[in-house]
């Protein structure tokens, strides 16, 4: 690999902080290199390191004038945009701690995190975030100011807690004129062991816990990742996943600042896929749902394509899958397969990659949740170097990773440098590295439970295979005991089924039950299109999901998957849910992991129905919209048996 030579490893000492590195990079690149781009008004607008530096300086000094001090918390909420990153960097430069919230958080979540983190300052994007702030400010007395960025719709607001980012920057500029050098002084005061981020994890069971991470944690994690896969300053990266997800921090902050690559911000969340294609990033890290969506897009387009195109795709994919499987089993690929694969690449794979925005991709990762083997094989079949990442927020994001020439789709790879991973006698995955966090904010009991003798206890069950790869089975508390006593990971069934384009979410049930069942959320778009093509009339998701034809369709997909499973793990009955699982209803975490304990309680009628002799379940429940409206729902759901 030619790019290896260009990556220079920096020395990470206990004195080094992210802002110090930021200062170093700005001096190095100044106006000669683009630090980030944002698409605005239809045009990609470049921002050089010089502008990056000046904006961060203004915001940081402005924030200190608002009363922000070292160690204070700054909460941030909003879509990915340069202003958001400047604010985070500015907060770190002041020596305060960044706290990120998911942009779609409901009021209660916002209030909990703002209050629990003792945030003094809140930085939000626009009107929506301002509304959230105004609704909670009376219940969060420690919050002093809210900074907003986008003036759209803000004309009628005059609450004294509000101040625009522009205003803050103006104040900062005046401070800089009065006290030049103050900004650099603030940065130099920082130490590697200072806390830089307070990261609330999306607990699948309990209240969110705030993990405290230091500059040293973040920087060592980035460096150890880049020791495996070096990134270079000419790389492009698209920042579009929530900053409140550790994976995005890991790329945009810890790796970005060390490698100096260019960050690209999409115009709107809705245009992200299109914008990714325009940029053609070299590096990408996303949770499985992003890749699942890509596969679904391809599958749907395939179903819609002409006969000749479908045949060409089938043929090219057959070749791709064969070659990928040879690669996985580390067998030599014969020259004729290579030749065939080249033709398939020219004819189909190359165009697919381009449409998915992956034409220039060198390293792409999935992490944060389990991904099914079928999805994984798909990307390797079209020649995308997709790798698994395993880690937790508590270890600054990543501890285990696939190596380029050693990819097995049922494992998550090997530990990155300076990282030890072990399995406890109970089967729990534990790890130790310089990136292990400092504890949970204001939760000493939780901290001692998770952090014992420097070892981070993950709560995941797994094992290390003969080649030293870590295999993650599932969350320990989620592992099912089947009828015959075997342990089984529900997420395996779920990710397998999700390969069907018609199925968006699955919840597999079977722990200490006579047989395995599942609750299915159909994909509204794809199944809707399927129904329209067959002249099946429907008006809404609940209605569509209960159509007999749709039940047959889902049944066929389950039968297909059942074939590869041991008899005891085969799905025997299923129900189509009348809605999709949603984080607003607490059914998923903000990173879209299923909260099993919660759904088990909420849908206990369905579970009872699946394990009794009925073919109808009556549901009486509510749905919450993002603005807090609650709608009452009464419906009957069919229970369908799957022929074995």
């Amino acid at each position, binding site marked *: 690999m030619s790019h290896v030579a260009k990556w220079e490893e920096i020395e990470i000492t206990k004195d080094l902080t992210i802002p110090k590195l930021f200062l170093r990079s700005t001096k190095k690149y100044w106006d000669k290199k683009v630090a980030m781009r944002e698409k605005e*008004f*239809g045009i990609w607008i470049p921002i050089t390191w010089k502008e990056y530096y000046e904006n961060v300086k203004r915001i940081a000094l402005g924030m200190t004038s608002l009363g922000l001090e070292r160690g204070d918390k700054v909460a941030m909420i909003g879509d990915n945009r340069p202003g958001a990153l400047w604010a985070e960097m500015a907060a770190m430069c002041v020596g305060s701690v960044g706290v990120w919230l998911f942009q779609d958080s409901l009021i209660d979540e916002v209030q909990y995190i703002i209050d629990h983190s003792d945030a003094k300052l809140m930085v939000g994007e626009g009107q929506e975030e301002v509304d959230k702030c105004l609704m909670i400010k009376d219940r969060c007395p420690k919050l002093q100011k809210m900074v907003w960025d986008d003036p*759209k*719709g803000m*004309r009628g607001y005059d609450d004294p807690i509000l101040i625009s980012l522009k205003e803050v920057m103006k104040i900062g500029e005046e401070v800089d004129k009065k006290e030049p050098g103050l900004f650099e002084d603030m940065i130099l005061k920082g130490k590697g062991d200072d806390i830089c981020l307070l990261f609330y994890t999306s607990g699948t069971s309990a209240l969110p816990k705030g993990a405290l991470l230091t500059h040293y944690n973040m920087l060592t994690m980035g460096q150890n990742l880049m020791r495996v896969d070096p990134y270079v300053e000419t790389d492009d990266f698209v920042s579009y996943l929530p900053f409140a997800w550790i994976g995005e921090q890991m790329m945009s902050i810890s790796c970005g600042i060390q490698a100096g690559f260019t960050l690209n911000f999409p115009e*709107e969340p*809705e*245009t992200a896929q*299109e914008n990714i294609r325009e940029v053609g990033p070299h590096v990408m890290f996303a949770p499985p749902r992003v890749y699942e969506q890509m596969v679904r897009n391809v599958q749907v387009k395939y179903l819609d394509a002409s006969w000749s195109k479908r045949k060409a795709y089938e043929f090219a994919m057959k070749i791709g899958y064969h070659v990928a499987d040879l690669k996985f089993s580390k067998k030599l690929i014969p020259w004729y397969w290579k030749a065939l694969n080249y033709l398939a690449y020219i004819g189909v794979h190359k165009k697919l990659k381009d449409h998915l925005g992956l034409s220039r991709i060198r390293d792409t990762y999935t992490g944060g949740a389990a991904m099914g083997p079928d999805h994984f094989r798909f990307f390797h079949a079209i020649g995308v170097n997709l790798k698994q990442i395993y880690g937790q927020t508590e270890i600054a994001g990543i501890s285990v990773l696939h190596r380029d020439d050693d990819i097995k789709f049922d494992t998550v790879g090997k530990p990155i440098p300076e990282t030890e991973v072990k399995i406890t006698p109970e089967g729990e995955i534990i790890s130790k590295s310089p990136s292990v966090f400092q504890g949970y904010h204001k939760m000493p009991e939780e901290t001692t439970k998770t952090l014992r003798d420097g070892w981070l206890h993950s709560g995941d069950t797994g094992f290390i295979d003969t080649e030293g790869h870590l295999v993650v089975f599932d969350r320990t508390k989620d592992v099912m005991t089947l009828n015959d006593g075997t342990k089984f990971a529900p997420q395996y069934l779920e990710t397998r089924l999700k390969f069907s384009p018609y199925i968006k979410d699955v919840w597999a049930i079977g722990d200490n039950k006579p047989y395995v069942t599942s609750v299915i959320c159909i994909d509204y778009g794809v199944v809707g299109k399927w129904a329209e093509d067959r002249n099946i009339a429907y008006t809404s998701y609940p209605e569509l999901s209960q159509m007999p034809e749709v039940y047959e369709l889902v049944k066929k997909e389950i039968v297909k998957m059942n074939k590869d499973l041991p008899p005891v793990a085969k799905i025997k009955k299923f129900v189509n849910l009348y809605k999709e699982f949603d984080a607003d209803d607490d059914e998923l975490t903000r990173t879209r992991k299923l909260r099993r304990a919660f759904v088990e309680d909420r849908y206990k009628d369905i579970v009872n129905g699946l394990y009794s002799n009925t073919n109808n379940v009556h549901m009486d429940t509510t749905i919450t919209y993002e603005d807090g409206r609650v709608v009452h729902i009464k419906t009957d759901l069919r229970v369908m048996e799957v022929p074995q």
Partner: protein
Amino acid sequence: MALKNEVQLKVQEIYMAFGGVQALMDVSFEVKKGEIFSIIGPNGAGKTVLLNCINGLYHPQRGQIYFEGKEITRLKPYQRAKMGISRTFQKIELFKGTTVLDNIRLGRHIHLKTGLISGSIYFGKTAREEIEHRDFIEREIIDLLEIEHIRDKIVGMLPYGLQKRVELARALALNPKIILLDEPLAGLNLEEVEDMARFILDINEEERWQATCVLVEHDMGVVMDISHRVMALNFGEKIAEGTPPEVQKNPNVIKAYLGEAEELYVTRR
């Protein structure tokens, strides 16, 4: 926005009949600058005919229309457009086979100064002019109406709610002083209605636009929420005019809506 007391549009005793059907019977009213002025009435009351008379698609048989002091009763629609009168249609009237951007650009046509020949060479002044217009469209319209993601999509392929938004976008491309909105909320779902109401307020209140809005709408919740003044028509006759609470209480209006009386009082909140 602070209302100025300046009359921008004055309609004076206009009368319009189609054969034996009297669509408008000597209707008079004034719209002040910066106002959201709503016209309500049961189906067939003559609301759309009235908008068609104002923007010049129909010519009334009697009566006068004044815009900013000038009489426009006999002017052609494009002449009125040039003066800053723009409109949207109840039934979407877009070019379905072209992109969203092209549809909006078309609304900008009236401001293009270059001719056919220089336009086909696309050089110097022409190129500059075109870039300026594109800049206007991107900054002021696409951003405002949040249609970045469909900019290059073919209009006919879009869902109805978005087509309605494109219709509004094209009307804005004219850079209007007054905008006539013919049932902009019809057929939209709850979320789309709220978005559209927000856009209408933006167009009316943002310093950049400050456009007067004449709104024909059946959604009483929104009409009563956002209008400064409301006029009610029934069978071509004006039966009431005033602030939303005044019109709501007017016995003639309640009578006209008899059977629909409750609906009049339903607001969305």
